């Protein structure tokens, strides 16, 4: 196992700020601290060459996990071993083998053309001339860097900046790459481009990757495995395919009834939404056949209109966040 995380916990100490002038004074003299648990004893492992997506709502602990894995933060407790090293203790040696992209922050020098940053990185990581040139050529071709490499970074679009940032994190040929929201704020085309690049780097070079995102599409299109994290806990860790299968079998049935019914019973389907005479049901095709269900419905009630919809992964994730889908906790 290349990355091994066991019972990882991270607490932040927050200054307890209360409203009001009196409290402000009190706070100045006697600061009160409050513990906030960002990561709550998570365990997972990632093997070499794997590509894993970390998905979760804001504040779920994704960024904290990435920061711990990249040696920025010291874990409160638990074990983290990456590539045989403790990221925090062996920081200097460890970080030369990883690349990190913080999507929200650039590592490029804001006032200078991106090529200056690349030049600096070449010196920092002691990259030989030939390797540097080879990698730069490759990135230029795949990400079209040459179009804007000579422009000051402050004039670049977000998509261009992100492309340059990703290339900058990879210029020293790291064995492991961590992305913290690499597609945040990008348009569809730019997102697609970055996904494609990430995917091909994983497949061709066998770089192990872990990235966090809010965007389910990112995961569907690039990762084989996904870990869903919410409020510091891993709520699901499984193959993307399996979740897709799960979503494949799930359907939503929306029915508009001709008149008011107090109780509607449909064997095999559960009502999940109700708005006047329009009601939405959920069922699985491996439990109930669609024609049978509809026949049943028609025979019992007066129906004006009905639609059957597939469930996308996104809504499954939403269910997982909301604490639903209990049968689904440990697929892998």
């Amino acid at each position, binding site marked *: 196992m290349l990355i091994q995380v066991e019972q990882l916990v991270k607490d932040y100490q927050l200054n307890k700020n209360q409203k009001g002038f009196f409290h402000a004074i009190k706070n100045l003299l006697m600061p009160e601290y409050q513990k906030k648990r960002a990561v709550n004893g998570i365990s997972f492992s990632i093997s070499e060459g794997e590509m894993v997506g970390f998905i979760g709502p804001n504040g779920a602990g994704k960024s904290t996990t990435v*920061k711990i894995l*990249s040696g920025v933060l010291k874990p409160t407790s638990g074990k983290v071993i990456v590539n045989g090293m403790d990221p925090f203790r062996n920081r200097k040696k460890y970080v030369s083998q990883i690349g990190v992209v913080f999507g*929200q*922050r650039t590592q490029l020098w804001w006032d200078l053309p991106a090529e200056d940053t690349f030049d600096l990185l070449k010196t920092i990581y002691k990259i030989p001339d030939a390797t540097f040139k080879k990698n730069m050529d490759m990135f230029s071709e795949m990400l079209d860097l040459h179009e804007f490499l000579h422009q000051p970074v402050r004039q670049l679009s977000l998509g261009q900046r992100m492309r340059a940032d990703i290339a900058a994190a990879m210029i020293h040929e790291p064995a492991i790459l961590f992305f913290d929201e690499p597609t945040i704020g990008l348009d569809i085309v730019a997102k697609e481009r970055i996904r494609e690049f990430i995917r091909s780097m994983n497949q061709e070079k066998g770089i192990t990757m872990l990235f966090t995102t809010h965007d389910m599409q990112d995961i569907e299109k690039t990762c084989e495995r996904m870990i869903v994290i919410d409020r510091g806990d891993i709520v699901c860790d499984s193959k993307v395919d399996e979740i897709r299968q799960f979503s494949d079998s799930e359907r939503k049935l929306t029915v508009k009834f001709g008149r008011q019914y107090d109780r509607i019973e449909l064997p095999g389907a559960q009502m999940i939404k109700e708005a006047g005479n329009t009601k939405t049901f959920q069922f699985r095709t491996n439990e109930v056949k669609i024609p049978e269900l509809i026949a049943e419905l028609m025979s019992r009630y007066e129906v004006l209109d009905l639609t059957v919809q597939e469930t996308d992964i996104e809504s499954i994730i939403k269910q997982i966040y909301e604490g639903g889908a209990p049968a689904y906790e440990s697929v892998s």
Partner: protein
Amino acid sequence: MYPLRLFLKYFQLTLKVTLQYKFDRVLIAAAVMIREMAGVIILILMLNRFVMIKGWQIDEILFLYSFLFLSYSLFVFFFTGIRDFEDLVYSGEFDRFLVRPVGILFQVIASKVDYTAALGHGVLGIILLQKTASQLGIEWTASGILFYILMLLGGALIQASIFMIASTFCFWTVRTTNLRNMLFFNSRKIAAYPLSFYPGLIQKFLIYVIPFGFVNYFPAQYFLKKPEMNEFWSGFMFLNPVVAAVLFALVCLVWNYGLKHYSSTGNALY
């Protein structure tokens, strides 16, 4: 030489950034110089009413001042990153330093240079030094020049240590800029005058607490040879490099301890 090569690379980039806004930066440098010069002019106007204070003539006091300007110039040239450390932590940029296989302090120091302040203070310092040294008839022997340069380096390091202690609090995300500025710049103002002008408590403060006395007053005695130096231990005159080295080493220890408690910032800032 990897560290040197890397340092030069950083140097090249910081210089390039400054040159991106040539006009602006020249104006800032001029503004810094004028601001500091105003202090000097007020000093001159005030002192002109007296021929001497406690045996000090005006040129001697300005000579004392030249140490402050030149050592501050050196300090900002090498340690701007430490002076502005708080911004680095608050903006989250510091995380980036931690994922690079280079010493943290090295990156903090190398990645930022305030050329405008270095220039503003430096030019003023050189003007003052040139004017006063010739007025006072100081002979520049080889050992004298070496001594002066060594004292400036030590002075820069002492000032860096003071800023670095303040920056350590950033690891616990405590803002101390105001306290730091109050202590540092007021001590510096006090140190503009000879130590012997002050009551014993303030003298001790500038020797043992915020050791600005070693930045200018004691080194200047080497050239001015004032009789009042008898009140202090004569070794103080040469102690600047020792104070600088010991202080900096101690502060580095504290800083490294603080680094272990660094807790990053959230993503909400940008």
